[in-house]
């Protein structure tokens, strides 16, 4: 039982890490450009498909992940330059509608190119086994690698944002956009880079999630809505908030799905618990979000905005 709980805890952390990678981009794009990007989930999906594509081209799993992330970075850049930058001055409703259109295009393009049948992205032999951990837990090596890589990327992101000049501009842009452009910063280049960076993170998450989830059209949407929950719970624009919220959402979702039914069956009859458990488990994060927003409408760690 203990090892089962520990394993599910690790699964929760792993989901949390993936959600953080996606939500970090989403929240950055929102914080700096005030742009709602529904198609962020599609970038996640493209990461997964590109990784499958590059795997068959290069034959190497690790190369394919890197190439996929770079390809999605390029895609994000293109998208920003051709379309998204025209929308910054528009209302949030317009953002929602245009990026909704982008989701339609992305999903159908994927169906046209790869078909609508789920593709299984293989795990390399080196990572296919289980790793013995302390306390007698065996955990899949690949998932462990995802956790480690995710943490590393998260760390790099913090260094980038907190210690470099670009990061300083990003932080400044999130706090007071107009002031940054008045100070002579090339704001449109900064916007393009932030958007592409967000795309890169989503693409990387998608490429890494390929072997865990099944690669199929529409896979981005489930993740997208969860990431939005993360971003909103954490506080729009706040990367630290996104990290905290991603972990909370990842753990609660995973633990709920794993144990809620058993917990409920101690209170109500097994039949009712079997019915209610899964329903309640999938609603749990949304109920959490509603509760948090009810008491803290700005999220857990809101960004200090000055206009």
């Amino acid at each position: 039982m203990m090892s089962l709980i520990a394993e599910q805890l690790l699964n929760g952390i792993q989901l949390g890490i993936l959600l953080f990678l996606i939500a970090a981009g989403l929240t950055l794009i929102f914080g700096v450009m005030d742009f709602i990007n529904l198609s962020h989930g599609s970038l996640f999906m493209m990461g997964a498909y590109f990784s499958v594509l590059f795997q068959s081209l290069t034959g190497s799993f690790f190369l394919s992940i890197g190439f996929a992330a770079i390809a999605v970075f390029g895609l994000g850049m293109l998208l920003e330059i051709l379309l998204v930058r025209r929308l910054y001055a528009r209302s949030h409703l317009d953002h929602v509608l245009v990026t909704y259109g982008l989701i339609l295009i992305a999903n159908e393009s994927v169906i046209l190119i790869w078909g609508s049948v789920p593709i299984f992205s293989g795990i390399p032999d080196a990572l296919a086994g289980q790793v013995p951990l302390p306390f007698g837990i065996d955990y899949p090596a690949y998932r462990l690698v995802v956790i480690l890589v995710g943490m590393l990327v998260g760390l790099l992101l913090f260094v980038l944002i907190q210690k470099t000049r670009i990061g300083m501009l990003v932080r400044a842009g999130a706090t007071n956009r107009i002031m940054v452009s008045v100070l002579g910063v090339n704001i449109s280049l900064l916007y393009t880079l932030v958007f592409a960076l967000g795309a890169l993170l989503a693409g990387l998450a998608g490429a890494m999630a390929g072997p865990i989830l099944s690669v199929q059209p529409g896979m981005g949407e489930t993740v997208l809505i969860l990431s939005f929950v993360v971003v909103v719970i954490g506080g729009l624009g706040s990367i630290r908030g996104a990290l905290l919220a991603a972990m909370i959402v990842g753990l609660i979702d995973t633990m709920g799905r794993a144990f809620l039914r058993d917990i409920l069956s101690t209170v109500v009859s097994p039949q009712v618990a079997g019915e209610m458990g899964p329903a309640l488990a999938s609603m749990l994060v949304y109920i959490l979000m509603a509760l948090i927003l009810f008491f803290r409408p700005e999220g857990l760690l809101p960004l200090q905005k000055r206009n």
Partner: protein
Amino acid sequence: MGASSLRLETFAVLFAMVAVGPAVAIVSGDVYQLAVFERALIYAVAAASLNMILGFGGMVSFGHAVYLGLGCYATGVLANADVTSAWIQLPTVIAVAGLAALTIGLIVLRTSGVYFIMITLALAQIFYFLAVSSSYFGGDDGMVIYERTTLLEGYDPFDSWQFYGFVAVVALFCILAINHIIRSDFGRRLVACRENTTRATALGFNVFAIRLTGFVLAGVFCGIAGFLLANQTEFATPGYASWQRSGELLVVVILGGVGTRFGPVYGAFAFVLLESVLSSFTSHWPILFGPFLILVVIFFHQGLAGLVNQLFSVRVKTE
């Protein structure tokens, strides 16, 4: 635009809305064409209800389809329990959708802006997952509805023409009612709250109560659209309450012209007809519709209503 052309537009639109379906069915000799126009009418009601809070109240609800789903399931559950009378079904649907909108509204109206968009989405997802995982309501597969709503002695709900008449009358009533609300004193207060909250408060309006009332009314009308949809498709599925459906409703409102009185009607007809034409060419029609939507939002912000307005004002001038 003068008062006479306004009345002319109202009459023309409402007449065309219910008459175009039968005309197409008669000309083509294909009664099944009526179903397409029933769908358009149902979408028009749902979109008009969303337009009331989106266009006039400034509330961007990204979970409006939840009331469509609720209305649909409420109707279906009653019908399958052999309660088919409209006089019981409609009040139930109104109560269910209204209560849901009241609960959701009490939570979401505390927030604004992006938070409002996201939390309406999240709360709608709660209902969606409830429907997906509940085996009593058919779960993921949905629920077949065996009986259509009965009304009066002599009304046969399975006769294509009679059923079309039923949908048309209910839709017409809803659209007229929504328009009446928008033009009423209350509608003007709703706009005032959108335009300037501080000023509206200073004028003594209870902004929260006004918004909540609008939100609940919109939910109720969308629930009625769900009631019609349950009858029309004889099916209830979680998909009716999915976030994609909520997005579709936003698309319909924008396509028609947000914040215009008949925009939702134009939008719904354009959307449903476009969908049925495009999907007869290719099953990959979203790949055509996606770019179309993006172009509409970027270049054609007035929607179809803007186009129609120009048409009518030109006519008035030439007269």
